[in-house]
């Protein structure tokens, strides 16, 4: 197999064994980006000389010589982040971010910067200062956001692993839309330094987007700066919540995820327990209010009168609206957070993971990101966020695992969530599910011929 198409861990092992020359791999990745990226707009910038310098100085670490893509959400020593936007409301400058240091110290080579939804404020990836990224499974469909470029790049096999960020589902949505495994770590566990909101966020984390759980484990261990040894998710107690997150979803997503949950139960010798999580519906608005308040920290009304005209109309209007949200609601959101954290702490005494669909419907069209659900037509953003908000609001880890293909051959993802610190358990459960379905979905490939991959 071409080294480009090897999983992340096998690229690392092949380089370590001397079977693959990392300099040749880097050049091959750059060539592949040049070949395939024009169709998907996943990579917004490469810097071959910087990458070669990184490789030349790379220490002998777990990712020695492995090319990695990083989302446009962190500075690099030679480039400030743009956050997918014409301007940020926070000052930025080139520098060594936490994810950069973690990757560098692990011997990885940052090969480019990944596209993202403008200001991180969307689950679809169809709005960006760089233009929309496209889903390799269908170029007219959304790749998911906000980590659109990292997901599209891994799905199109430009790179085997990418670093994204998740403040309100932004790793899990694109993982699900693009048929990948994406881990939203426990809050505070993964490197975040250098992010322009690092000092004030209570929701955003960095995390890996890769083909499967083993690759996510490797990249997450680098971002965590700690080992995440593989284990067996035996006797898994799977909590199933009967709520809009599991029921107001398209019939194909519901059937596919319910079948996957049953596969996971059988594979682990576990059980499915129907559980109640009161106030789950309030998590969405509480998380939105929290991230709104944090992202406007330090922003003055006058600043909103000086917005770059190149910001999208949606971003400009939405920023101004957010300024009007009442402080009393933000405080109420804090109480909801406390309430849900306490409810989850009690719930995780009875179950090991919670499971529901990552996204309620497959990737929508780029030009009209709407989804049809039992409750009616909704914007994808409205529908997606309600399944993701709980993990960000409360700090628990979550993972999206590919579990099937729906209409149009588009991927479907199952989300698993565990108690605080249960990141390794989620990876174990994801691996168990992969074994149960004979890795059918983590090895499924998009129709790459359409993006210049005919050779």
């Amino acid at each position, binding site marked *: 197999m071409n080294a480009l198409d090897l999983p992340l861990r096998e690229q690392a092992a092949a380089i370590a064994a001397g079977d693959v020359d990392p300099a040749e791999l880097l050049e091959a990745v750059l060539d592949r980006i040049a070949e395939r990226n024009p169709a998907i707009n996943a990579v917004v910038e490469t810097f071959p000389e910087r990458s070669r310098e990184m490789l030349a100085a790379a220490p002998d670490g777990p990712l020695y010589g492995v090319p990695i893509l990083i989302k446009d959400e962190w500075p690099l020593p030679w480039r400030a982040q743009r956050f997918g936007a014409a301007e940020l409301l926070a000052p930025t400058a080139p520098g060594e971010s936490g994810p950069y240091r973690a990757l560098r110290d692990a011997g990885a080579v940052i090969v480019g910067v990944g596209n993202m939804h403008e200001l991180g404020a969307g689950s679809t990836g169809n709005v960006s200062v760089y233009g929309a990224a496209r889903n390799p499974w269908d170029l007219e469909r959304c790749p998911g956001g906000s980590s659109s470029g990292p997901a599209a790049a891994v799905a199109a096999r430009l790179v085997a692993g990418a670093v994204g960020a998740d403040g309100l589902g932004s790793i899990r949505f694109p993982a699900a839309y693009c048929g990948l495994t994406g881990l939203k770590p*426990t*809050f*505070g*566990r993964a490197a975040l330094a250098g992010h322009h909101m690092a000092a004030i966020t*209570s929701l955003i984390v960095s995390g890996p987007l890769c083909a499967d759980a083993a690759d996510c484990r490797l990249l997450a261990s680098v971002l965590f700066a700690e080992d995440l040894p593989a284990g067996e998710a035996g006797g898994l107690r799977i909590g199933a919540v009967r709520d809009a997150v599991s029921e107001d979803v398209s019939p194909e997503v519901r059937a596919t995820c319910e079948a996957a949950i049953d596969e996971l139960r059988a594979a682990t010798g576990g059980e499915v327990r129907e559980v109640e999580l009161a106030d789950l519906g*309030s998590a*969405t*608005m*509480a998380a*939105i*209010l929290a991230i709104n308040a944090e992202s406007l920290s330090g922003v003055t*009304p*006058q600043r*909103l*009168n000086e917005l770059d005209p190149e910001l999208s*109309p*949606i971003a*400009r*209007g*939405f920023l*101004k*609206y957010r*300024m*009007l*949200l*009442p402080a*009393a*609601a933000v*405080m*109420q*959101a*804090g*109480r*909801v*957070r*406390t*309430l849900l*954290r*306490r409810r*989850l*702490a009690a719930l*995780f005494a009875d179950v090991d993971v919670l499971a529901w669909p990552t996204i309620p419907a497959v990737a929508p069209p780029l030009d009209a990101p709407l989804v049809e659900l039992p409750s009616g037509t909704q*914007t994808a953003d*409205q529908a997606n966020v309600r399944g993701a908000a709980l993990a960000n609001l*409360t*700090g628990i880890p979550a993972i999206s695992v590919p579990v099937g293909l729906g209409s149009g051959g588009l991927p479907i993802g199952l989300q698993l969530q565990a*108690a*605080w*610190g249960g990141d390794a358990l989620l990876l174990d459960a994801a691996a168990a599910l992969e074994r149960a379905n004979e890795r059918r979905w983590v090895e499924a490939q998009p129709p790459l011929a359409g993006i210049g991959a005919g050779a």
Partner: protein
Amino acid sequence: MDAADRAEQFIPAGLASFGIEADDVDLAVMSAAHQMFWPAILELLSRDLSDVAPERQPDLSRAPEAS
């Protein structure tokens, strides 16, 4: 005054209070956002959570301390 009328007043009044300028496009986006978010905000505000003492400087990397 019904909810739609209140919404129509909320945005211009809020913008005027802060001295934030907005063109017609901004106002259209804000109106759509308001329709999307405001019902959930009102629902949140209407809840009596006075018995839920917020965590003091919560450590979101861990389970909450017992209430």
